[in-house]
């Protein structure tokens, strides 16, 4: 049977769990260069769902789509190492300053250009913004239905998709028609590790903007092995309305940013002794806080 055409939306994100002192620039914007860049965790859960469908339905093709600077091609390599078939890096200064809506617009224009797609799978949200907006916004711009908070894509065959969702207070199984946009929770199975064979095959895969200082030998290697060329699209490769891109196309604006400063407040310092703990308990009982 004919397989599915799946696109996984993945984002390279600063590892907000390891933020250092130089993380913010003087103008209050994030200094992404100073932070380790990682594959957004829930996008890895999304990739795993796509790879499971590929395991299940012969002939399925998994393509990663990421928007970002040249170095975001790393996300595509990580996907290739795990079993994805190919990837597209969408990279252009015209996208700079995009909020979720402008990002969704650029991605949806790209997806339209990519031809017929059966399932678009994304992580529920990215750890740098935690908004969970891009998936549904892309779906709306493509006029497709959406299934968010997915934990397991149970099946995607005969034009139907069945998905188990994990919500705050329970689970729900829903059925819809393909094509569909699905966003995947962290509660879904973890992504499989890199496969050594794919690492060997794709470790030299590069996008055009990563090849600027490449040696002639390296360029020759790439022309001999076309699968090493990671597709890179700019704004000129997709049909867009410039007013909906980047900062101009973003209805939300950042008015101000404050670094978090902890205010000192007078606190009683106690020793971990019976005497001090006894005093503390007496105080708390006396002022009706406990007891």
């Amino acid at each position: 049977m004919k397989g599915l055409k799946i696109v996984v939306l993945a984002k390279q994100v600063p590892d907000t769990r390891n933020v250092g002192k130089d993380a913010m620039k003087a103008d209050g914007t994030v200094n992404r260069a100073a932070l380790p860049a990682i594959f957004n965790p829930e996008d890895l859960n999304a990739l795993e769902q796509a790879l499971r469908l590929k395991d299940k339905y012969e002939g399925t093709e998994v393509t990663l789509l990421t928007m970002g600077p040249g170095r975001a091609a790393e996300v595509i390599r990580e996907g290739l190492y795990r079993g994805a078939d190919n990837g597209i890096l969408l990279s252009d200064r015209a996208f700079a300053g995009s909020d979720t809506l402008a990002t969704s617009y650029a991605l949806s224009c790209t997806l339209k250009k990519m031809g017929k797609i059966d399932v678009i799978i994304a992580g529920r949200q990215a750890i740098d913004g935690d908004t969970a907006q891009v998936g549904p916004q892309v779906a709306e711009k493509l006029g497709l239905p959406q299934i968010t908070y997915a934990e397991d894509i149970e099946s995607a065959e005969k034009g139907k998709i069945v998905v188990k969702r994990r919500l705050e207070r329970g689970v729900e199984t829903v059925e819809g028609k393909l094509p569909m946009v699905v966003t995947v929770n962290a509660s879904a199975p973890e992504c499989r590790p890199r496969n050594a064979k794919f690492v060997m095959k794709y470790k030299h895969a590069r996008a055009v903007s990563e090849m600027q200082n490449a040696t002639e030998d390296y360029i020759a290697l790439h022309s001999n092995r076309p699968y090493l060329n990671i597709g890179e699209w700019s704004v000129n490769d997709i049909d867009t309305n410039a007013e909906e891109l980047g900062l101009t196309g973003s209805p939300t604006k950042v008015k101000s940013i404050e670094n978090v400063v902890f205010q000192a407040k007078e606190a009683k310092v106690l020793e971990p002794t019976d005497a001090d703990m006894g005093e503390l308990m007496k105080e708390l009982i006396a002022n009706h806080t406990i007891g």
Partner: protein
Amino acid sequence: MNNVFVYCEIEEGQVADVSLELLTKGRKLADDLKCELEAIVIGHELKGVEKQVMPFGVDKVWIADDKRLYPYTTLPHTSILVKLFEEEKPQIALMGATSIGRDLGPRVSSALHSGLTADCTSLVIGDHEDKKNKKEYKDLLYQIRPAFGGNIVATIINPDCRPQMATVREGVMKKEIVSDAYKGKVKNIDVEKYVKPEDFVIKVIERHMEKSKVNIKNAGIIVAGGYGVGSKENFALLTELAEVIGGEVGASRAAVDAGFASHERQIGQTGVTVRPKLYIACGISGQIQHTAGMEESAMVIAINTDKNAPINAFADYVITGDIATVLPKMIKQYKENTK
């Protein structure tokens, strides 16, 4: 026209707490803006639902009642909101940052090309001057939220697009009745005029919802543990202390990720927000992701081996020491002093 709208979530005929909290905030914003507060309820068998929302100061309730509208699915709820917003032109639209609000909000904002800010921790009205384009804006909604893993707090505005949309998590805003006698109008939505047959393309084939078992949100005393608690065994000490003094156990995200406690106990930006009268923070360093969810506690006791832990800035009492030493002493002293 140009009022404040709140989308109210329904579970088993009851308006969700998060929606009532947003109505309370919405009432305050409407007062500041001298406009009206309107609520939207979409579901099935909603007879009398207006009585649940009006006491929160709702001037108009829009009700869409149809058996296809419950349980929630994305597209019909989106269609109703999009068309209603096009007709009524709200200046502000709020919804819960729940699995429903976070599914619906972005869809509606994308259709209307209006800005949406997720997971706001504070909403206030203020002005804005766009120096570059020399434009002045009056009475915008400041949508304030932690960003970038909680290391910064950003104020987001939507100067030009309406409605200004925001989602807020459950427990972040206070819920307060204005008056049991508050009277507003009821408007029934003619569902057929708002939805399309193809909106019902997604079918819910199975559904298991549970009432939340753990209720840390309303607990008066919370004993919360962080990664610094170190082990599940040490975490049991927190449970013991909580039982003895009549509290609930909470946890930071790091402690939940480490498997010390279940997700429903998570306090902070990605968990619930709590305002107990006593918060005992054990082995919690005090990153803003966590403190955003507990900083309004009336009294905070911080127990930490690091005497410079950021949590201490929030504390009324700082105990520098090891959980395994301090907690048993607290339990023993409590028992001795309540004999």
